[in-house]
């Protein structure tokens, strides 16, 4: 059986299982409470595992492993922040939320005021957040679908989008819960098995899939290159290549651009150790994605021809072959030298390129901070950026609507705490496994330079077709479970918060169910489009933005209402709007977004990639001042 056929077969099997659960449970859902919060009667263990399934999204499964594979230690700080967020949710929000709310987060925020403005604002931000969080899920899905099924990413996104809509529309929270339980359990099991396989195999000097990129250095003293009439003479090439430009000028770290305008070649200037000459290092270059975009659908990243699969050791300590244990795996990795790829994004003749330069890093360097965040060269700005990210991660979980509504689905306070603990243990176990998988992916010869999201599925491929197919099917289920939870939360915001409580439409139980289902369909369609537009961006990075917006929009108001005194309706409104909007605006003005629109990163009006360090204090200040002046 071919790779795609096996994967499709496994995926379809999983879909049948999920849909069977959905239809079976759907027959037992006849009330709004049953649809939105499963009647509030779920067992704590079931809810805890559903938390795991809901929270371990594509951002965790695909994104974390991808970042660890790219940047080593720096990838672990994301799980640290994700986990810490659960403690904040447990201590600050979980129990009071259950007392104040009924179906949605808006219920809790509005309980003290019974205000149409608060209801509308809270419901709108719930919708915005669910949509934003759907983007990384859909991006992860597109990354999976393109190479596996041989279809464009948007087709796969549509397929799963339709399935999710069916799941949510048929049975609501109860089926969503059991889908997430199945997915959470499968995810933990498959990650454990793959990690055991990685330890058993150990490290390989030559990965099973040889790297497609010739990483040899071209020795070329700088003077020689400069004085040959503006042409670059490269060893092994017959004809001299005309140099177009040198960015920013002849110095170590510069890029020499040569060749034709259509297919420029990039050479990286680096100083040779202990010598007076400089080297020109061959690179891999591709057009930046937005340059390739045609019409409203971008060209799928993985369809770019000749994308090299990379990731290998340059030096490996003896006896690094398996079986290895958890500690010896780290020790061997630490004693190795690894080829990693540094990305530079130059603009040549108005077109933006992604240039990847192979660099040598020791295992010690990869297991220390700074590869992604660049603390040494970036100085205070990179540290501020890091703190801003960590602030968003630790405070964002306690503000995510699709996570918080799970606290309504258990009958007691004690059950809410227990289900949080189950979630904490499950996620901690997963993140440890994800770290090992990321390190293994870094050196398995299967790392895609243009899309780090595929690190783990491609690692599984190095073990054979069946592990690859199983892991991919589970990754599909991962996206499926989280997307269904998000669509569930968003449909609750529309049907319960807006139609019923805000507009006061005379809707009965049946009409409310229909509204929720229609809302699920509309939200699913919007999410599909957004997922296609953002294809190729690391999904953990995208998710961190959602955490920043969620924390800025909701957390000060929730904490003020639950634990403070004198909080007014105007204060809550000011906090939600100022926090939420400022976070979104700062994201739009940040370097990653500015470069996505085709400008230089240095031209970004807001210098940080993560906005929480500004937007969260603004939100808190708005709550305090707004409440003080309107009391």
């Amino acid at each position, binding site marked *: 059986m071919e790779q795609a056929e096996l994967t499709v077969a496994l995926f379809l099997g999983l879909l049948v299982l999920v849909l069977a659960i959905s239809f079976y449970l759907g027959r037992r859902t006849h009330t709004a409470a049953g649809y939105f919060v499963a009647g509030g009667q779920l067992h704590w263990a079931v809810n805890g595992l559903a938390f795991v399934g809901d929270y371990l999204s594509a951002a965790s499964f695909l994104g974390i492993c991808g970042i660890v594979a790219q940047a080593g230690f720096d990838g672990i700080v994301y799980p640290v922040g994700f986990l810490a967020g659960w403690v904040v949710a447990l201590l600050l929000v979980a129990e009071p939320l259950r*007392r104040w709310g009924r179906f949605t987060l808006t219920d809790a925020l509005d309980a003290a005021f019974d205000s149409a403005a608060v209801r509308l604002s809270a419901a709108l931000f719930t919708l915005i957040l669910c949509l934003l969080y759907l983007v990384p899920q859909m991006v992860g899905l597109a990354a999976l679908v393109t190479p596996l099924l041989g279809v464009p990413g948007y087709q796969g996104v549509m397929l799963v989008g339709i399935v999710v809509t069916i799941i949510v529309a048929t049975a609501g929270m109860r089926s969503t819960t059991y889908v997430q339980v199945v997915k959470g359990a499968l995810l933990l099991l498959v990650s454990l098995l793959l990690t055991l396989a990685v330890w058993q195999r150990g490290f390989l000097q030559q990965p099973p899939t040889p790297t497609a990129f010739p990483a040899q250095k071209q020795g070329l003293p700088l003077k020689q290159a400069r004085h040959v009439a503006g042409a670059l003479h490269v060893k092994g090439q017959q004809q001299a290549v005309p140099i177009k430009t040198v960015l920013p000028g002849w110095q170590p770290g510069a890029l020499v651009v040569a060749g034709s305008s259509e297919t420029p070649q990039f050479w990286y200037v680096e100083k040779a150790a202990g010598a007076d000459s400089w080297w020109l290092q061959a690179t891999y270059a591709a057009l930046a994605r937005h340059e390739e975009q045609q019409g409203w659908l971008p060209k799928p990243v993985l369809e770019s021809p000749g994308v090299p699969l990379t990731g290998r050791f340059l030096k490996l300590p003896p006896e690094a072959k398996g079986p290895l244990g958890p500690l010896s795996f780290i020790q061997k990795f630490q004693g190795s030298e690894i080829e990693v790829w540094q990305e530079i994004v130059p603009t040549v003749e108005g077109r933006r390129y992604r240039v990847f330069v192979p660099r040598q890093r020791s295992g010690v360097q990869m297991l220390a901070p700074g590869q992604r965040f660049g603390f040494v060269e970036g100085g205070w700005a990179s540290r501020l950026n890091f703190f801003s990210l960590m602030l968003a991660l630790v405070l964002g979980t306690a503000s995510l609507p699709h996570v918080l509504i799970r606290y309504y689905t258990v009958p007691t306070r004690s059950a809410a705490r227990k289900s949080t603990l189950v979630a904490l243990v499950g996620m901690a176990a997963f993140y440890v496994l994800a770290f090992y998988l990321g390190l293994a992916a870094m050196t398995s010869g299967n790392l895609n330079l243009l899309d780090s999201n595929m690190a783990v599925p491609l690692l599984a491929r190095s073990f054979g077709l069946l592990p690859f197919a199983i892991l991919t099917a589970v990754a599909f289920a991962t996206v499926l479970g989280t997307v269904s939870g998000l669509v569930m939360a968003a449909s609750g915001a529309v049907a319960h918060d807006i139609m019923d409580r805000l507009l006061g439409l005379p809707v009965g139980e049946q009409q409310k169910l229909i509204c929720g289902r229609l809302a699920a369909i509309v939200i699913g369609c919007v999410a599909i489009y957004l997922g296609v537009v953002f294809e190729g961006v690391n999904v953990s990075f995208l998710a961190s933005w959602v955490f920043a917006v969620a924390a800025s929009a909701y957390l000060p108001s929730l904490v003020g209402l639950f634990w403070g005194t004198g909080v007014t309706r105007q204060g809550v409104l000011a906090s939600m709007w100022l926090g939420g909007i400022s976070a979104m605006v700062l994201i739009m003005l940040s370097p990653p977004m500015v470069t996505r629109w085709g400008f230089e990163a240095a031209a970004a009006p807001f210098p940080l990639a993560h906005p929480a360090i500004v937007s969260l204090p603004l939100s808190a200040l708005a709550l305090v001042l707004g409440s003080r002046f309107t009391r």
Partner: protein
Amino acid sequence: MPRVHNAQARLRVWLLCGYLFFYGVFCGVVAWGGTLLQQAVNGVPWGLLLCGAWLLLTLLTGFIYHAVCGFWERRQEAPSEDTHGAG
């Protein structure tokens, strides 16, 4: 405001403040302690040990909170079966 037992509220504040303090310390060490975190103890770098310790601290905080709250709830014979929609 919901009724909260004073001792439980104090525990909550202390746990939260302590946890967030250590979170800040963790972030500070990661941002400034690159050289320190490259050093290894028995072949395992400090950075990973720090993450492992952090993970244990997180689990411990959750379990302590749940255990103490459960103990108080049982001792007071206060019903933990609160109802939805009380607000």
